């Protein structure tokens, strides 16, 4: 049975992302943001499979990744809103975050070679630890992915590639941008591949535990492909998908499934998450604008 801690984190990420879209709608946020609505369960499922000594390389859709690693929704929201307490002083914003061994960056595919470099360091100096890198299905259009996979396999690097395959790259459906399969790509490099359609954090952990253990123990790369579903827009208000497509995505949402299974727990924890996010949003919005960091933009 899913633990309260996991449910609470899932709900926190869901309410946090919804709040961002609401704040955008009210004109209270600048720039852009990419929410992970529907994909929250992926970093939550991976959480106990990773340690603080592992590297996590996140991408443009990285709020869930951050919140699963650090219990710091206020720091993240402050970063996105450019307010005091921002985790990167407001310089990085939504998609450029660095904290300890967590790093996100905004250019597709760019982080995979960097993650391979971090994995090379771990293999030499800190065996047993791994570098985890989150990418999407659209990221496979970038040559950097293939260059890095080649090296990761060639040099037997402890690199865990997490593919959040949500079937759409911004507005372009996968069938218009990806020939062949991700499994075929991994096979071409001699890299183990595991695909899961589950949205159940316990099932996913059971599926992946041993495989991730091999990344550490045998120092070799692994591609894990999550067949997942993006419930929200790519960024904000830019969802051009047909209603039927969005409805099909909702059919895979973890929320109604967990709520049906654990109505009282979900409602109680949801109320807590909602209240926390409301409180943080009010608190952060009232903070002074971040002053910026000398020499850092």
């Amino acid at each position, binding site marked *: 049975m899913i633990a309260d801690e996991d449910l609470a984190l899932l709900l926190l990420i869901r309410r946090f992302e919804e709040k961002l879209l609401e704040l955008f709608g009210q004109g209270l946020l600048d720039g852009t943001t990419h929410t992970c609505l529907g994909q929250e369960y992926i970093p939550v499922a991976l959480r106990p499979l990773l340690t603080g000594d592992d*590297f996590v390389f996140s991408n443009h859709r990285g709020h869930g990744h951050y919140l699963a690693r650090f219990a710091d929704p206020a720091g993240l929201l402050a970063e996105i809103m450019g307010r005091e307490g*921002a*985790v*990167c*002083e*407001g*310089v*990085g914003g939504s998609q*450029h*975050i*660095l904290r300890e061994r967590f*790093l996100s*960056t905004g*250019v597709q595919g*760019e*982080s*995979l*070679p*960097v*993650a*391979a*470099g*971090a*994995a*090379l*360091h*771990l293999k*030499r*100096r800190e065996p047993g630890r791994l*570098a985890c890198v989150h990418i999407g299905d659209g990221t496979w259009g970038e*040559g*950097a992915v293939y*260059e*890095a996979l*080649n*090296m990761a396999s*060639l*040099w037997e690097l402890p690199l865990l590639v997490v593919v959040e395959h949500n079937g759409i790259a911004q507005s372009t459906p996968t069938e218009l941008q990806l020939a062949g399969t991700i499994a075929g790509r991994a096979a071409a490099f001699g890299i183990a591949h595991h695909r899961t359609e589950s949205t159940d954090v316990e099932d996913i952990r059971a599926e992946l535990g041993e495989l991730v253990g091999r990344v550490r123990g045998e120092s070799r790369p692994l591609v894990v492909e999550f067949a997942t579903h993006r419930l929200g827009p790519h960024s904000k208000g830019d969802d051009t998908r047909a209603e039927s497509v969005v409805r099909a995505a909702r059919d895979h949402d973890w929320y109604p499934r967990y709520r049906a299974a654990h109505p009282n727990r979900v409602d109680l924890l949801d109320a807590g998450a909602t209240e926390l996010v409301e409180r943080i949003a009010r608190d952060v919005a009232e903070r002074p604008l971040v002053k910026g*960091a000398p*020499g*850092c*933009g």
Partner: protein
Amino acid sequence: MRVAENLNRALHHVFETDPDVHLLGEDILDPYGGAFKITKGLSTRFGDRVRATPLSEGAIVGVAAGLALAGEKAIVEIMFGDFAALAFDQIVNFASKSVSMYGRPVRLPLVIRCPSGGHRGYGPTHSQSLQKHFVGVPGLSLFELSPFHDAQRLLVDMLALGEPCLLFEDKVLYTRQQFEDGRIDELFQYDLVGDVARVYVEDPDDADCVLIAPGGLTQRALEALRELLIRYEINGVLLVPTRLYPFDAEALLPLLKRAKAICVAEDGSAGGTWGAEVATRLHEHLWGRLRRPVKLVHAADRVVPAAAHLEREVLVGAAKIRDAVLEVAGVR
């Protein structure tokens, strides 16, 4: 000692003294030792810290940046500097950004070595000097190898910066003599003023014209200065900085306090040049004191042809530098 040997020795020294340093690049292992033999002996002595890579310049720089972020130090050899274009995203959007875009200074000790320049008949895609394309990127420093500056100190200094650096290395310069002890030949001597090598005949402050050029142009600049002196009785001083960007114009000012004419020479093609950046900075300080604006010398606005006689027409040679100095000195 040749410049190539000096650089090779410097790399050996860095690897001997710093167990955190890695080298990545194509064909850098023994017995081949790199396309220009700069990495000879390193893989034999330092094992897997010297890593031959696939032909993947983008990922090579990305992996190096990952190593650097994880607390190590990385040197990359780009076989031909032209191929740095394949790593542009990693250099400009990742490595250079990462030192400041996370709201606090992040250490990223990374040196990307780029054998550059023509005069070897390699043709349009293997003869370029791409310095100008990397000028003005926040967090990115540009250096150039010189026969006056010890490569060991240069490498150590670049790694100590904790920020990504590009090191441009002229391919012809590799084969030239590394100067030591202040003497170049029977005519010229030099000294080092901070980062800048100053080449002169007798009195560095008594010159008709100051020529500023990166290390790769040294031989051609010396040839031009020799002819200017002997044939035209124009006394020129050559200033060779190793750090091209950010360019410390203020540090150069004491060396220019009596200059009436200045010329900046470089190997890149015309348009948006490093020399234009230097000239702009110098004009801020020296406008009104110079007889005429800083004169720029660079390659033509054309690709670099393979045939030697055509290549000579496009690239900067001693005659082109000589003519520019004559013009800015008011002789023609």
